[in-house]
């Protein structure tokens, strides 16, 4: 296993277009790192440079302390998981996992040990003598993972592995991959365009935009302390709402009334003109359902509800709002860049599933102003980000990771050497 360090990595194509532009990123030994962003952000190119499929224009790619820029894919000893899904019908599950070792002429005793260890981790040991036709969908995927494990690679790499699975299998596989990575404690780089996958799988997530890193942080830090409009808009589903806002008496004037700001944030926005305030759907509530004690922590406003969506355990209301053309264009550009379909001139607000708020009627809402962020609409910069609070969230995630890995190693009966180089 190994750490992966990228120093000022640039990938420039023949036409001069920089697909990856000065990326520096350190992935710790055993860490699960996600590369995420909309199409064209450079995430796949970056992964291919780690694997060795793309030449690096400039910068250093260091794996396990060694510079690998000039090494062929095979010499890097990395494993692309799921590059081969094929199950061979006449081979037992054991041999379906073992064949890369057979082709490398690994001695039988070694093959036996590696396959059995991998099968233990994957809970396939009871199926080793069967033929793959008898396996469930999830078990089949685990056989493919087993092939990656027995190679004893320095790191696992995944390139959008779940994008073509149906929803049910996708959910299952997400869980499997996460569990496997923890049990093996193997450095993992995972590329996806799906922010939900990014948030649920990664220790840290690297958000890319047009070849440049926007922010590298734990999912919680990205969610709560995004550095800019792009990250704020990309992370979270339904997405963050962005409303036009102007500073006014230590608060913000918005289409949903005045929003109070604490001193720190008020100071950050004074002297500014037109701004964007970012409010996540769950910072809203049906005012009639908010506890008396909580009411003073936010503000109240009335608005007409366009549509409500009741999902049983949750409910969303859609509230259109007016925005000046400049903001409207800004938001349209942003949603295009995020590959999002909607033009965000309506707020999506989450309300309690018991709420009786009805479509086409005015209703009173409460807005929790403690967690809103304010963005510069021109540069996209988050003016109210609390870097320290953010760093604390990512530190916590790192501590959790170490703890989970130790638990996994001590917990389940002596399979710790699997995947170790």
């Amino acid at each position: 296993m190994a750490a992966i360090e990228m120093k000022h990595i640039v990938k420039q194509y023949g036409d001069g277009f920089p697909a990856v532009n000065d990326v520096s990123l350190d992935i710790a030994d055993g860490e699960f790192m996600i590369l995420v962003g909309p199409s064209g952000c450079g995430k796949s190119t970056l992964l291919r440079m780690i694997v060795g499929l793309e030449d690096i224009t400039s910068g250093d790619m260091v794996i396990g302390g060694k510079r690998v820029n000039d090494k062929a894919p095979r010499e890097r000893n990395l494993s692309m998981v799921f590059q081969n899904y094929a199950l061979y019908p006449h081979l037992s599950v054991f041999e379906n996992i073992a064949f890369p070792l057979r082709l490398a002429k690994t001695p039988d005793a070694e093959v036996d040990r590696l396959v059995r260890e991998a099968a233990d981790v994957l809970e396939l040991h009871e199926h080793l003598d069967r033929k793959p036709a008898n396996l469930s969908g999830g078990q089949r995927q685990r056989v493919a993972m087993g092939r990656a494990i027995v190679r004893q690679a320095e790191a696992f790499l995944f390139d959008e592995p779940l994008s073509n699975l149906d929803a049910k299998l996708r959910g299952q596989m997400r869980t499997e991959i996460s569990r496997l990575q923890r049990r093996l404690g193997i450095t993992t780089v995972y590329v996806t365009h799906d922010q939900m996958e990014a948030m649920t799988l990664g220790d840290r997530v690297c958000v890319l935009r047009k070849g440049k890193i926007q922010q590298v942080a734990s999912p919680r830090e990205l969610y709560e302390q995004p550095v800019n409009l792009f990250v704020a808009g990309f992370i979270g589903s339904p997405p963050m709402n962005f409303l036009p806002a102007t500073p006014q008496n230590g608060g913000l004037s918005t289409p949903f009334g005045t929003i109070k700001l604490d001193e720190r944030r008020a100071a950050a926005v004074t002297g500014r003109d037109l701004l964007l305030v970012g409010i996540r759907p769950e910072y809203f509530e049906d005012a009639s359902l908010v506890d008396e004690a909580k009411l003073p922590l936010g503000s109240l406003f009335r608005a007409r509800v366009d549509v409500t969506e009741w999902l049983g355990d949750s409910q969303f209301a859609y509230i259109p709002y007016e925005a000046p053309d400049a903001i409207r264009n800004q938001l349209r550009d942003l949603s295009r860049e995020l590959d999002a379909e909607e033009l965000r001139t309506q707020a999506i607000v989450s309300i309690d599933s018991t709420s009786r708020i009805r479509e086409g009627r005015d209703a009173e809402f409460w807005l929790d102003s403690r967690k809103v962020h304010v963005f510069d609409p021109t540069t996209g910069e988050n003016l109210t980000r609390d870097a320290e609070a953010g760093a604390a969230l990512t530190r916590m995630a790192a501590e959790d990771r170490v703890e989970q890995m130790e638990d996994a190693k001590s917990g389940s009966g002596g399979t710790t050497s699997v995947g170790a180089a």
Partner: protein
Amino acid sequence: MRYLFRPPAAEAAGLLTLPWHQPLAEWDDSLLLEVPQRGISRHVVRFVASEGRVFALKEIAEPLARHEYALLSEFEQEGLPSVSVLGLCVDRPEDQEAILVTRYLEYSMSYRYLFSSARAHSPGRLLDTLVELMVRLHLAGVFWGDCSLSNTLFRLDAGTFAAYLVDAETAERHPTLSARMREYDVDLARERVGAELLDLRSGELLPAGIDPIAVAESLPGRYESLWDEVTREEVFRLDEQQYRVAERLQRLNDLGFDVGEMELVTSAEGARLRVDTRVAEPGQNRRELFRLTGLEAQERQARRLLNDLRAYRAYLEQRSGKPVPETVAGHRWLAEVYQPVIDSIPPELAGRLEPAQIFHEVLEHRWFLSERAGRDVGTTAAARAYVETVLPRTPREVTTPSVMADRH
């Protein structure tokens, strides 16, 4: 539901009545055609016949289906050896995956059959055919990503094989392919071929003499030497220049490649020759045969048939004592030589081999019988003997699906 296809696709109009709204796995057997020549697929694949043609239907996620549809269309237009795509069905009810429809490659054989058949084709020759396909794709900037025997179909072509790409799901198109991408693709192929042969051995389908690991290990070397042969720069003395350029060109043409451009840089040490090798559909003989007879055949088969046609023309001219135009000769050869041979095949043996391949084999058989008899036995006698003794040895299971469909 929506159907996307590129005209002309008239032969497939009958497909529209199929139950596209149902999962492919649940289609009634009466609609389907059993095709024994199958590789390993991770998707549901079924075969159907319509108006004498056979189609392969594959259930696959829509983005992949669209990707594959676009790539296969491109490949076909450029003459890369791949299956021909008809179209796709998307927006199926209940969020079902798309279905990609390709035209079945008639008279093709899977590696399962070729490696396990009693005819025991040399594994080396099959690998060379596969490697040639990879070189063609790589020259065209195609990264396959899943090159395996399962994803390749083989067709007999007058004593050799031609390989076709069947599955382009993981393929990528680049302006040019870096050496690393090629190397990676070859490495993936080596591993898959090894696994597939291990699988055949495990199923007791592989003749004892074939070692899966050794065969797989030979793949990268075979690839490298062909790649080198078609792309390497050569340096030679100025006085040999003319002859060496012609020789190189001839060699590339013999290997089935075309040259787009040759660059010759001369200096005191000699001439440096750089070739821009292209993948063109091997086609000169094929086009010529089609022009003269309307017959469709593969390149090497076409060469063989044309040779016979020319011999027949010479015979006609000699007999009549005056020139016979080639179009007339083509016409007469078709009616008097080729067609009688094909017509002599009894219905129960039809469809086992492509007609042009049969004609080629009859010519081979004629040579063999003549050699033994010490005189020319003639095509008619050779055809009779061939149909009685040789053709029946070709197993029934290789009968091409469109012919089987016609029998039902």
